[in-house]
């Protein structure tokens, strides 16, 4: 891996590139928010950022410290109540892309942010919980997942389905009546996974520069499928890195 940028920077840049200009994107805090703001500050100036705190069309000039940061309200086209953002904006399918992280993710793109290990009532690790994710995963036109890859995170089957991906495979979303298409792409610090069009199984389709298939397989808790036409992504451009680092600096400055 080049010394010019970190694996996290590559991941964030690759995630940002997934967001098309002019679309509406429901953004969680953390990596999704950083990537979405990078997209807006670079190739997608008309990306509409929607935060679950009720900020529609937020245009922060620094990274928000939380989904309820004042800079989101100050720069939003509209600030609405939390019930309204879920009922009037997310639920009817008005949002093109849901941008989610996860503590665990499985072969079929199901996400877990609830408990790991043990059982629900006596968990190994208690995580924050669902937040907006279950309905973001259900109702957005499609879902982009950003998550660091390692065998503890990328598991055969999540310990708890907080947000539904493809369940156990093809046809399940339709059977359940979920309006959105589900996870279209998973961006990690090693590469890019996409659901197989037939089996819905997450498949390695792109490597970040300098990463090998073996590295990705070693970081995956299931027998990872690899696309026939595996590609290698472009490294971050000078401009992408400059914008990203400037954004990150605003967050450190606020700390």
């Amino acid at each position, binding site marked *: 891996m080049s010394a010019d940028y970190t694996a996290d920077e590559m991941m964030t840049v690759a995630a940002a590139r997934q967001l098309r200009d002019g679309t509406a994107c429901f953004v969680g805090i953390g990596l999704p928010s950083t990537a979405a703001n990078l997209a807006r500050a670079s190739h997608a100036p008309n990306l509409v950022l929607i935060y679950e*705190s009720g900020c529609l069309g937020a245009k922060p000039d620094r990274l928000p410290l939380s989904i309820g940061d004042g800079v989101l309200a100050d720069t939003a086209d509209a600030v609405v*109540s939390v019930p309204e953002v879920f009922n009037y904006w997310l639920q009817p399918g008005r949002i093109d892309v849901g941008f989610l992280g996860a503590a665990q993710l499985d072969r079929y793109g199901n996400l877990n942010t609830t408990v790991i290990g043990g059982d629900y009532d006596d968990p190994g690790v208690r995580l924050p919980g669902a937040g907006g994710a279950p*309905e973001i995963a259900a109702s957005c036109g499609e879902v982009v997942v950003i998550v660091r890859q390692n065998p503890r995170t990328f598991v055969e089957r999540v310990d708890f389905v907080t947000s539904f991906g493809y369940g156990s495979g093809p046809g399940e979303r339709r059977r359940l009546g*979920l309006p959105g298409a589900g996870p279209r792409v998973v961006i990690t610090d090693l590469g890019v996974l996409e659901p197989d069009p037939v089996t819905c199984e997450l498949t390695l389709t792109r490597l970040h520069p300098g990463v090998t298939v073996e590295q990705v397989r070693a970081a995956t808790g299931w027998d990872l499928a690899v696309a026939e036409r595996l590609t290698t992504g472009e490294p971050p451009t000078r401009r992408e890195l400059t914008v990203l680092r400037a954004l990150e600096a605003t967050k450190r400055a606020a700390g």
Partner: protein
Amino acid sequence: MAKLVSLSDGVADLVRDGDVVALEGFTHLIPFAAGHEIIRQGRRDLTLVRMTPDVIYDQLIGAGCARRLVFSWGGNPGVGSLHRFRDAVQNSWPGPLELEEHSHAGMANRYVAGASGLPFAVLRGYTGTDLPRHTTNIRTITCPFTGQTLTAVAALRPDVTVVHAQRADRAGNVQMWGITGVQKEAVLAAHRSLVTVEEIVDELDPVPGQVVLPGWAVTAVAEVPGGAHPSYAQGYSVRDNAFYIEWDEIGRDRDTFRTWIARHVLKAEASA
């Protein structure tokens, strides 16, 4: 008309042992001072309700006020996990903490139903997730027109809701702006309500984005300048982000936590 009270009188009158209590706020306008007063007054066996239980709930849980938590996302916003919350769930310290867990959409609609005088709300939610297995407050319902299956959630009716707002006038009309989250619904869903405000003024000048709660829909108002610290009150204060980061260390260790509570909460006076 809402009564104007001191914070300590307001908490003493309105928050009782065993109550279902919602202290709401969406990273903005978190009623920290009221939460500290609840700790100081030693309330026990509370069912704490909140969409986004954060540092103040970590403090209430660690201080032993809570028996149960009804929530949708419990974390230190922008920082990470809540260690007191985790310790209670994983190790029953300082006591066991029952959980009832939802999604944001579900919790928001539960407040909406409560505010609307309805026993339930309908949404498209939870589908395919493991959440409905762990509570009876999520069920399915059939549309009487189309036959579609949807999700129903039971109304939330807290005994008391506590929120922080920017201002109130002397009749107890409350004005808040910026990110106002689910506070209106949480107040209207509750049997009683206590609103702490940055200041009480003669006249509430209209502000863009304002939500106004008429005084006759609020039980009591207490003037508590800085009552949202370390969160913020738009137009009055900014978030003390260093404290949120610091809390990760304070909350991680039981003794450090106890020392902090003793010094910063128990020995402090109610600010009003």
